[in-house]
């Protein structure tokens, strides 16, 4: 069974008098340990898909099962609990809490788990070490560069040892050099810590670091070959 399973997922929005349906009866499987990148033109529903998998948005139809839990059936409170234990979210704009230090920002998700203070401290220190920011633990977001802020965001996403981490254009607001550093970091986290990653990006180069590249086009997933750049339709076993 795949770690993430989407079956017949549809989602529509109303924009004025118009109804937009970026996701129409889509299916997707992501295996444990995979690093999946998701590309596609603007407005095709990439971020919507990420939000649905994260349980911060609701499907109109279909089901999403992540690590054996059908998230589409959970209440808002249960979804929060589920996210705290199973999901890490990396935002495009970092979204660190400005009044908290890097350490405190990374510590936040661990406060929602049943951990001793020692366990919590160990996890935070490990996460900061993994992103190379142990020496910036006491700095506030305003004292960090964009790349450092994003690395703190990544540490926050992995500190609770989630089963899946989703990243919404994690390099979208960074310069080329910093963007490459973050890409390397994500790749390392996937390989060394065996974290399952689902990343939305506009950047073909960033998408290229993923073990599997998908393109969302007109509500359908296409598999993209990183060498040729050619996309082809996904063949589902079922």
């Amino acid at each position, binding site marked *: 069974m795949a770690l993430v399973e989407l079956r017949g997922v549809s989602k529509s929005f109303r924009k004025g008098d118009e109804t937009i349906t970026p996701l129409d009866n889509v299916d997707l499987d992501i295996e444990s340990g995979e690093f999946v990148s998701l590309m596609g033109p603007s407005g095709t529903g990439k971020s919507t898909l990420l939000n649905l998998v994260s349980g*911060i948005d609701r499907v109109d139809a279909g089901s999403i099962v992540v690590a054996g839990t059908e998230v589409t059936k959970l209440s808002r409170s249960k979804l929060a609990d589920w996210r705290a234990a199973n999901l890490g979210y990396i935002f495009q704009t970092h979204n660190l809490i400005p009044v908290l230090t890097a350490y405190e920002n990374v510590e936040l998700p661990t406060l929602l788990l049943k951990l001793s203070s020692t366990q919590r401290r160990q996890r935070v220190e490990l996460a900061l070490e993994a992103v190379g920011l142990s020496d910036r633990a006491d700095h506030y977001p305003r004292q960090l560069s964009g790349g450092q802020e994003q690395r703190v965001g990544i540490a926050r996403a992995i500190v609770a040892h989630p089963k899946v981490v989703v990243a919404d254009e994690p390099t979208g607001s960074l310069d080329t050099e910093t963007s490459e550093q973050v890409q390397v970091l994500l790749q390392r986290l996937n390989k060394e810590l065996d974290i399952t990653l689902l990343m939305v990006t506009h950047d073909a180069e960033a998408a290229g670091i993923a073990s599997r590249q998908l393109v969302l086009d007109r509500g359908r997933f296409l598999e993209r070959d990183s060498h040729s750049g050619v996309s082809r339709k996904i063949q589902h076993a079922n």
Partner: protein
Amino acid sequence: MNTYVLKTLWRHRTRTLLTVTGAAVAMFVFCFVGSVQEGLHRLTSGADADRSLIVFQENRFCPTSSRLPEDYARKIKEISGVRDVMPIQVWTNNCRASLDIVVFNGADPRQIQNSRPLKLVDGDWGQFSSQRDAAIVGRNVAQRRGLKTGDQFSIGDLSVKVAGIFESTVPSEENLIYTSLAFLQYTRGLDAAGLVTQHEVMLTDDADPDRVASEIDAALRAGSVATKTRRKGAFQASTLSDLVDLIGFAHWLGYACVGLVLSLVATTTVMSVQDRIKEYAVLQTIGVRPARTMRLVLAESTLLCLVGGVGGTLLALVLLGVGGFAIGAEGATIAFRPSFGLAISGTLVSVIVGIAAGLAPAVQAATVPIVNALRQA
């Protein structure tokens, strides 16, 4: 999570300081008004108010206009249910409502010592009993006028030597200055030899106050001056009737203060939540439950209100304690004293108002559509 709340308040410290100060000022006024209400309540409903009677000249109001024969005391004592009678000559510097009223009560020093719940905190009873112009001064008056034992105190034609400072379990007593009866009767301008302002009647445990009051008035009807006898509480309420109406109205001021704190803290919390709605969405994306998000907002509003409210309440209590404030009219006074009840009610009101002020923004933070909030710049 507590760190988050505290750091958020600290980061917006100007807003926090203004809100806390506003809440403190409002709760300060709330406690002051509460203290006046409590003073009035004590004056009209204490045990002393129900178990003793005041015999006053009929149809007279200001103490200077009531002139009863001193020997009425003997006739009153003969009535069943009367335990003791204390003739009192009253002198006041102002018959109208005043915040700096000085009231002298002249009575037999021995009776004062035996019948009044007074405790000398300085000076001695011996000097008060033996020296003709000696006076013992209530703690409130002493604080207000800066008097201490050994001082000579003059007001109008009266000049007394302070023989002691007393405190009392009945706060209004602490607004009085006691002298001997004879001293006050022979004071220039009073011309009251053989006369007193009122008789205070102490009742036996089983006496019916209203019956005894009627019998006193009936017994003295044949005397040179007709009397009107009432329970002490009723007498004081009647004497202070104009003030009672004002004080009754003042409780609306107390409610207005509560409303002010509510709107102030609610405004601050609403603004704070609207400014940080994306933060709350981020917290929920991380896994903070909606209920916990609500608690974070409520903690913020309650803390603001509690710090301001408790600060204002404490300031009011300290000022009430050291200021010796009182308001009086026609010789009766209401003491503004700090009390444990005021401290508790000030704190409770702060907590309740803090929670009430945070409810709407807390619901907003907890129920905000996460995706929409994350899209905000």
